[in-house]
């Protein structure tokens, strides 16, 4: 039976389309869709690639088993259970039970060399490192980097060494045993379940160090999951010097590396401590913690559910002093129990970060000068005779001064440069690769994060960023609007800047890496009051946003923490300018763009600085 379609009234069509469009506007996607999709894509990739090592392992196991069987059948005289293979590939991974010992124990390490298909690590088939169950290189070479585990310091290691004489094969003399027990210790520190590990040792006789590729043995399938490479060094020289862990990194060439971007190894850190890490192929859960050397006092564990590169801040509870380490563990809790996938450990020094700023850098008549923060005396000029400097920012670690020079051509664009704060060395160009720069911002304790705006003549402005969140661009800054100042949060997850629209402007923040255009910008709560737009912003080292609100008659500086803004101080008769916070978050520099500048210290009032200063940074 056929039926004739009735003609449709165009007015009804229009009405339906209008209703659908209006209804569609009420549906607002959450904004994290791309992150979720990418995370799922990465997980699928990871799963599919993990199948390759499994296949390889099976092949290796089959080969080894065949070789052993051949040897036995041929009556070669080799003892059963000992691998017989090509002499160029003699290393066989040994299995070690899940570590349950403490560093003080001197349990005999596992020396089993049974060739079990479930426990052979694929990489052992190709390694050329000599087989080892205990240290086979005589630790007479100068020790390498000072370890962080299993002893608190060299004195403790020496004391152990004196007592351990005569003990049979202590695991402290075995790099593999030490590495595997360290991973177990870290898991306990993070309150995560124990696992079974397998390690493959590579000794470096040239410098007396070793690396151990540690894998987790999947209980159900027996397949190895590479966790990371544990780097080891001897605590001292001598025939029975114990091994110690120096750090853990992803194996070179790893497809799914986990790296700790900040803090840098061996830097001095204190709370609050932002730990920035990068992951490729992230699992669901990341645990972050810190501990004193030797596995002593540990910080509270931070748990992050992440998709890609991310960060966590250890707010308190760090050891007060001494050496120690930062741990980042990535894994999945998909099947109830946490399954570790990757581990990274960075050695650090605990203590008050030497970030206190006894000086500040200011632009006076277009030139950079270092001033004493207490006396405001001109300590020394910076960057030789560089002139035409318009913006300046000092890295939180007080090592580098970034500045914009020569922003005087027709487009107002200049060259991004940097020089050492202590005045040594030669200024050098920051190679942005994208041409002239009109504004820039740095972030992170070591200026790991960088953002800059490029405004080629006659075209729209583009803000480029490189941070722990990856890298990308934010567009839509037509002429106007313009991004006139930029700053990145210490963890690299947020970009803030003053965006000018016509004659008006306000501070906008952009979540990275999702922000793509100007319309993704969000005005901070404290900057939305009518007539009180914000003119500049800066980040404190704990991630708090500090911004300046201007009402045309005075400037008011606020600090926003957890969505709540607190007024810090006010300056009357000022209209514009920029703000900067010192790394401790207790001192602020404010300039009004006309040559006037003020400094403020927590608990005090704003004090005007002498001279004419157009921009300044702690």
């Amino acid at each position: 039976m056929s039926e004739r379609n009735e003609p449709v009234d165009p007015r009804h069509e229009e009405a339906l389309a209008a209703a659908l469009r209006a209804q569609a506007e009420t549906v607002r996607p959450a904004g994290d869709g791309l992150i979720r999709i990418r995370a799922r894509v990465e997980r699928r990739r990871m799963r599919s690639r993990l199948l390759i090592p499994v296949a390889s392992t099976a092949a290796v196991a089959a080969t080894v088993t065949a070789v052993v069987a051949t040897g036995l059948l041929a009556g070669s005289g080799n003892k059963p259970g000992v691998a017989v293979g090509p002499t160029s590939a003699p290393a066989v991974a040994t299995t070690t039970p899940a570590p349950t010992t403490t560093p003080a124990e001197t349990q005999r390490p596992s020396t089993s060399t049974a060739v079990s298909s479930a426990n052979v690590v694929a990489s052992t088939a190709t390694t050329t490192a000599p087989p080892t169950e205990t240290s086979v290189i005589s630790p007479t070479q100068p020790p390498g980097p000072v370890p962080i585990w299993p002893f608190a310091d060299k004195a403790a290691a020496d004391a152990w060494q004196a007592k351990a004489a005569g003990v049979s094969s202590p695991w402290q003399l075995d790099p593999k045993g030490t590495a595997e027990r360290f991973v177990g210790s870290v898991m306990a520190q993070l309150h995560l379940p124990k696992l079974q590990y397998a390690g493959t040792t590579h000794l470096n006789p040239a410098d007396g160090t070793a690396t151990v590729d540690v894998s987790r043995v999947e209980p159900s399938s027996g397949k190895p999951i590479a966790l990371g490479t544990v780097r080891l060094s001897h605590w001292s020289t001598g025939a029975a010097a114990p091994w110690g862990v120096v750090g853990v990194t992803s194996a070179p060439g790893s497809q799914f590396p986990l790296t700790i971007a900040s803090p840098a190894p061996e830097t001095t850190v204190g709370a609050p401590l932002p730990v920035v890490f990068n992951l490729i192929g992230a699992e669901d859960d990341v645990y972050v913690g810190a501990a004193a050397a030797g596995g002593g006092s540990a910080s509270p564990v931070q748990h992050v559910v992440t998709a890609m590169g991310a960060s966590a801040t250890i707010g308190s509870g760090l050891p007060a002093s001494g050496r120690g380490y930062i741990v980042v563990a990535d894994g999945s809790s998909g099947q109830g129990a946490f399954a570790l996938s990757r581990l990274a450990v960075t050695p650090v020094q605990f203590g008050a970060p030497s970030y206190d700023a006894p000086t500040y850098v200011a632009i006076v008549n277009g030139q950079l000068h270092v001033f004493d923060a207490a006396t405001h005396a001109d300590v020394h000029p910076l960057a030789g005779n560089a002139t035409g400097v318009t913006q300046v920012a000092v890295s939180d670690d007080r090592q580098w001064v970034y500045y914009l020079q020569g922003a005087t051509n027709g487009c107002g664009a200049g060259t991004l440069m940097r020089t050492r704060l202590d005045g040594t060395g030669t200024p050098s160009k920051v190679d942005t690769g994208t041409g002239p720069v009109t504004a820039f911002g740095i972030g992170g304790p070591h200026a790991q994060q960088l953002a800059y705006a490029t405004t080629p003549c006659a075209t729209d402005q583009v803000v480029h960023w490189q941070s722990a969140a990856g890298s990308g661009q934010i567009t839509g800054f037509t002429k106007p609007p313009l991004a006139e100042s930029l700053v990145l949060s210490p963890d690299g997850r947020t970009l803030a800047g003053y965006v000018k629209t016509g004659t008006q402007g306000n501070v906008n923040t952009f979540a990275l890496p999702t922000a793509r255009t100007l319309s993704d910008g969000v005005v901070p709560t404290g900057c939305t009051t009518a007539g009180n737009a914000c003119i500049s912003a800066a980040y404190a080292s704990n991630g708090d946003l500090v911004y300046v609100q201007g009402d045309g008659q005075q400037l008011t500086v606020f600090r926003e923490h957890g969505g709540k803004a607190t007024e810090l101080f006010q300056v009357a008769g000022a209209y514009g300018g920029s703000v900067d916070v010192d790394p401790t978050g207790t001192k602020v520099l404010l300039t009004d763009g006309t040559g006037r500048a003020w400094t403020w210290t927590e608990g005090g009032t704003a004090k005007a600085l002498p001279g004419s200063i157009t921009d300044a940074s702690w």
Partner: protein
Amino acid sequence: MSDRDLPVPPSDAPSWSDADAALTAIYAAQYRSLVRLAAFLLRDPGQAEEVVQDAFVAMHSSWRRLRDPEKAESYLRQAVVNKSRSGLRRRKVEAKHAPKSTPDAPSAEYGALGELDRSAVIEALRVLPQRQREVLVLRYYGDLSEAQIADTLGISTGAVKSHASRGMSALRTTLEPWEKTS
């Protein structure tokens, strides 16, 4: 003088492959409208996002075969429609075994905003047979041609015309007051 190690970018930042780059670009262009399309079909914005994310993951896996943004767009639309249907089927099965709840009512927000006409149209659309609803949403929200709708739904253009005609007839009485206000 250039100092190439200076900007300190993360050296291990992801280097996106073709599929990754395509995913990002197509996401920027299509994600929002696909979520809205799925929301019309599923009547659940949360589930709509999940469905669209599923479709993007599937598209990424199939990129070697697609390798064309236009094909990818069509693939995504089909995937969203199919997955929305599956979602509705699953919901029906779950509803059979769930305790009876009070029927859906327009939210208080709609009334407060004086959008009763619009919600009446949307409500009338919801009670249409699934195929008619799909055709009307793809035609009047997705702005697709009859041929594109036929391709998306895997039916003939004749069937598209027929579903559209029946659907519009069913909506006529609801659309008349809306037509006056809009």
